[in-house]
């Protein structure tokens, strides 16, 4: 699996319903890359009437070199929190892209690339606030794609989220991050033929 972090320029689309914190997730990714990891980043946010519940998306580009064009044509990473968003951007995916979905909100079909699923919204509800699903997705994304470093994204989250919720948001991030690591480990194990605890 080629990790997007190896590429000079990583293009990301975060998509979902308005109100899920899609734009914030994109903002945190871009800010972590530029402020924390000393890279270049851009953010294009697409919403309008959609912020009242329709589809919205954030397009983020993270690059080692200056970025000349901020729109994403073929995302390296697609993070989908709604079926509509998923369907809209799937055709743009490349064979080496990575698709990350909330498994309770998106039913992926015939995905052209590697994909990973997490019950982010359910996990956020268990943590007491489903508004944190986006942060859980960020944790998941960080663990799987390593597109930004853990330290910088945690620092960005701490600065970005509303005061008084920092601790809970970091907890949510860690949940998603652990889930991501666990998913990767599970894949590795299954590939090695070890599925259960018994031999």
């Amino acid at each position, binding site marked *: 699996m080629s990790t997007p972090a190896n590429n000079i320029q990583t293009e990301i689309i975060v998509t979902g319903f308005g109100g899920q914190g899609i734009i914030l997730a994109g903002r945190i990714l871009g800010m972590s890359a530029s402020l924390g990891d000393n890279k270049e980043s851009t953010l294009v946010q697409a919403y309008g009437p959609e912020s009242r519940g329709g589809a919205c998306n954030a397009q983020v580009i993270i690059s080692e070199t200056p970025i000349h064009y901020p729109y994403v044509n073929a995302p390296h990473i697609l993070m989908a929190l709604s079926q509509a968003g998923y369907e809209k951007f799937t055709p743009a995916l490349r064979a080496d892209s990575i698709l990350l979905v909330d498994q309770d909100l998106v039913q992926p079909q015939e995905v052209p690339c590697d994909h990973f699923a*997490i*019950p982010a919204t359910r*996990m956020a509800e268990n943590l007491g606030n489903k508004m944190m699903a986006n942060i859980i997705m960020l944790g998941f994304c960080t663990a799987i794609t390593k597109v930004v470093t853990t330290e910088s994204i945690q620092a960005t989250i701490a600065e970005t989220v509303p005061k008084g919720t920092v601790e809970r948001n970091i907890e949510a991030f860690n*949940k998603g991050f*652990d*889930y991501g*690591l*666990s*998913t990767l*480990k*599970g*894949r590795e*194990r*299954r590939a090695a033929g*070890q*599925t*259960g*605890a*018994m*031999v």
Partner: protein
Amino acid sequence: MNKTNENSLNILLFLCNWGAHAAFLNLQDEQRPIPDEIRMVRTPCTGRIDRAMMLKAFAKGADGVAVVGCEPGTCRYGSGTATSVRNTGDMQHILDLMGLGGERLRFAAFLPEQSEDMLTFLQDFTADIRKLGHAGIETLPPPPIADTAQRKEELQQLVTNFDIHACQDCGKCSSACPLALVGKAFSPRAIASAVITGGIHAPGVRENAWSCLTCGLCYDRCPSAVNFPAFIKDLRHLYRQSELSGQEVHGGFFHSLMRSLTSPAVKPRRWAGLPEDIRIDPHSTTLFYGGCAPYYDIFFSKHSDVATSTILVDSLRLLNFFDVTPRLLEDERCCGHDLLWSGDKENFSRLARLNVDRLHELGIETVITTCPECFMTLHTTYAEQGFEPQFNVIHLYDFLEEQIDKGAVCFEPLDRTITFQDSCRLGRLENRADLPRKLLKRLKPVRFTEMKESGGASICCGNCAWTGCDAYSKAMQVKRLEQVHATGSDLLVTACPKCQIHLKCAMEDPFRREQLGIEMMDLTSIIAQTIRWE
């Protein structure tokens, strides 16, 4: 008889009164050179020398024990020889586990005329024991008998420590006590009153104090929060100091075992025969503490087919599954729980000191255990009793819950209907009844039904600390098993090896086997069998 000096070895010879003793008499009459170390105990039948007696011989300082009976077929009582062969076989396994070596115990059979053969046997055995040297068990002398004044003072101290005067005489404890509810003349409240009024040595009170399950249900219900289980624990200690011995069951086998393990010179070989696929790291700072299950399996194999060691193997598999390769303590000793809870604070302290020092010496940072008694003792009691453990103790369920909660693992469907027997140590004394339930809810059985009394209100499996088992314990176990069957389940999930042993014992009832019998499996084993990477 022949003891020459302090350093000489002690070899105990249990000799059957019938065939073998005649041969021995011949040797004595003819002044044949019987080794000096041998001390002979004449018994009516070697079949009556049970495993507890054999172990007690070692615990009291024997370096070798020979059990010499009659040839199979010449046993006066029919089955004595067969019983003895089986008992000695079991004990040899136990001695191997304890690190003393099964070769210190030997069974032989001789006809009356085989005196020369017997002499050869005794000489060979003695030569072997001389090679092995001392067994190294040093037991504490029994506690000095406290004088009356001191005893009174200690009793007063107990009353103050546990605030027994706070008892409102409301009787909620007695109406909750599972022993009282099956009809035993047992009342926590009455014990409390007796202690206040100075009647603790009345026979009824004494008997009650030894048969208390220390399950903690009364403490749970007490509006004045009188910690009755802890109080009983200390009361038993007080009793032991005034010569009134406890009612150790199974012939005191387990108490002898635990006391033997308090000797620093005894180095158990606790983990022999572990499956090869288990990954262990001898340098890890995370230690898996197993507990006494292997001893139980050998001891109880005579009565029923319990296999509690599988819980330990499955625990290790689960740790491996989540990439933890723990260290194992080859010379792991007992945690001392049952000694403390049967009033033997002195020997408990010796064990606790040895354990804590050993773990510190190895630089252990985290101890993981699946036995609820080990967990409570290592986690809570050691600190309470001032042993200052510097390591972190976590229950395997906590570890599993944390790991599973990280996600990406799932459970295969379990084609069983299940119910759950709580462990009193984890559920009530540690107040963690929710912990196994979190894991149970993750499983995918056909159905999970709680029993009528569950969680914090759960009924004990019938016994604690190997003391005071009687007909009421059995009645209680039967009641519990009826509750199990009332749920319509076909698998009883347990969380403590002792629950399995005790409930299995109640199921052995030949008249009610059909109604009471149900398969049991530890929660750890179920998880190990059904967990999968997603």
